[in-house]
């Protein structure tokens, strides 16, 4: 793997992996991959590979965490020890705990939690291989796993990051681009209502650059959203076509 390349964008305006600045990495999504979970989904976005599982709604354990007027949404984002180049300790790190929280907060507005008081809905996001953009891809799969579990939702949540590398605003950063670039801006949204549920930034952007990056990320989210819907329906369409041949 190339470490710290001098240039992230070549003379032709293409990035290290040959993408144009406003191009997503190839996305492959599969829904319902685990039989023991109530709902599940798997995503490959470039070299990032993430699995999500959902359990619930079910009785809350421990009991005292239950809320009388709505369900509690609990989320665990976890990176497998083998997901990065240097083995990562399997114990939850500071970063993972924070990501668990922001992912939960990005998904909460989409779920009708008030329908199922005194219950919990548990989400497990397992990063199998990390190459940047795992929090966004994590949100994308987790919302599909929720839909697969039959949890009623206002909309799916799609997420995508934009950022700045070599002075240019680009979409969907890889790990190398993130580490050597100037800024990173992950965005999660419910595209139907155009509501943003997560917005973070590290690095520096001017106001104009920020606006450009945000718009680009929103466009990216919408592309991801289409892929999500297609993946969610794919299983059923397949059966329908098989029956009608």
């Amino acid at each position, binding site marked *: 793997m190339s470490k710290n390349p001098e240039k992230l964008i070549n003379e032709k305006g293409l990035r290290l992996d040959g993408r144009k600045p406003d191009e997503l990495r190839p996305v492959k999504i599969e829904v319902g991959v685990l039989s023991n979970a109530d*709902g599940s989904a798997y995503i490959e976005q470039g070299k990032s590979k993430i699995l999500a599982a959902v359990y*619930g709604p*079910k*009785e809350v354990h421990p009991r005292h965490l239950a809320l009388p007027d709505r369900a509690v949404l609990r989320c665990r984002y976890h990176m497998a020890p083998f997901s990065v180049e240097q083995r990562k300790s399997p114990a939850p790190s500071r970063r993972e705990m924070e990501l668990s929280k922001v992912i939960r907060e990005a998904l909460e507005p989409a779920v009708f939690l008030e329908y199922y008081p005194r219950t919990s809905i548990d989400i497990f996001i397992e990063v199998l291989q990390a190459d940047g953009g795992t929090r966004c891809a994590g949100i994308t799969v987790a919302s599909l796993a929720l839909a*697969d579990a*039959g949890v*009623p939702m206002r909309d799916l949540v799609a997420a995508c990051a934009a950022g700045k590398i070599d002075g240019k605003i680009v979409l969907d950063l890889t790990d190398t681009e993130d580490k050597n670039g100037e800024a990173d801006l992950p965005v999660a949204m419910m595209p*139907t209502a155009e509501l943003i549920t997560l917005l973070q930034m590290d690095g520096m952007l001017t106001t104009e650059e920020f606006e450009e990056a945000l718009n680009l990320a929103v466009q990216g989210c919408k592309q991801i959203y289409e892929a999500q819907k297609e993946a969610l329906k794919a299983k059923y369409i397949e059966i329908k076509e098989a*029956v009608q041949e």
Partner: protein
Amino acid sequence: MPTFFEKRELVAPGDLLAEGDYIAGENTYKENNKIYATRIGLVEYENRKVSVVALKAFYIPRVGDIVIGKIVEVGVSGWSVDINSPYLALLKASDVMERTFNPRRDDLTSIYDVGDMIIAKITAYDRTHNPLLTVNEPGLGKITRGQIVRVTPAKIPRIIGRKGSMINMLKRETGCRITLGQNGLILISGRSLESERLAVMAIRKIEEESHTSGLTDRVAEMIRKEKERVKNE
């Protein structure tokens, strides 16, 4: 007032189903005069009502439903029953006893023990209290024979079919007694293991292809073919 999908078309959460003077039915919600889906399923437009027939859902108790449950705990004055729902159900000892229940004399485990399966009816439920069960009606009580199949509760109506067309066909063709729990558990008991196997197979097929048309005929044909095959062996 446009609608955006064909009848019985597949929709996902967040899909815009209709705009204007419509009523939001099951598995949909209304916002700014627009109706959206909340679950993956098939959209239905009936007059002014827009609803989605879910393809995957969990069981939310309703008073009057027949359910199949498993005893998970024997308490002092009753049992806790897992009815495949977010909420544990309660069955009171006084409901089963002929006379008044005396916790010092009566041993609840001799009636139902942990792991026993029961058919019960929901007598009371609201979202602030766990559902209450009764077994004090004909056809209810402990399950002693047969096998249990689990499907997603959203598909129970499909297994019943229009005016019971599917379930009646299943009973006729397989000769099994089939009890549907609204919570997605189905009890099948037949004269032979072979007939039970046939019923299980048919239910699995219905579950998988519930969103396609002409299903009753296809299932009937499958059962007939399977019977034929077994006979020739």
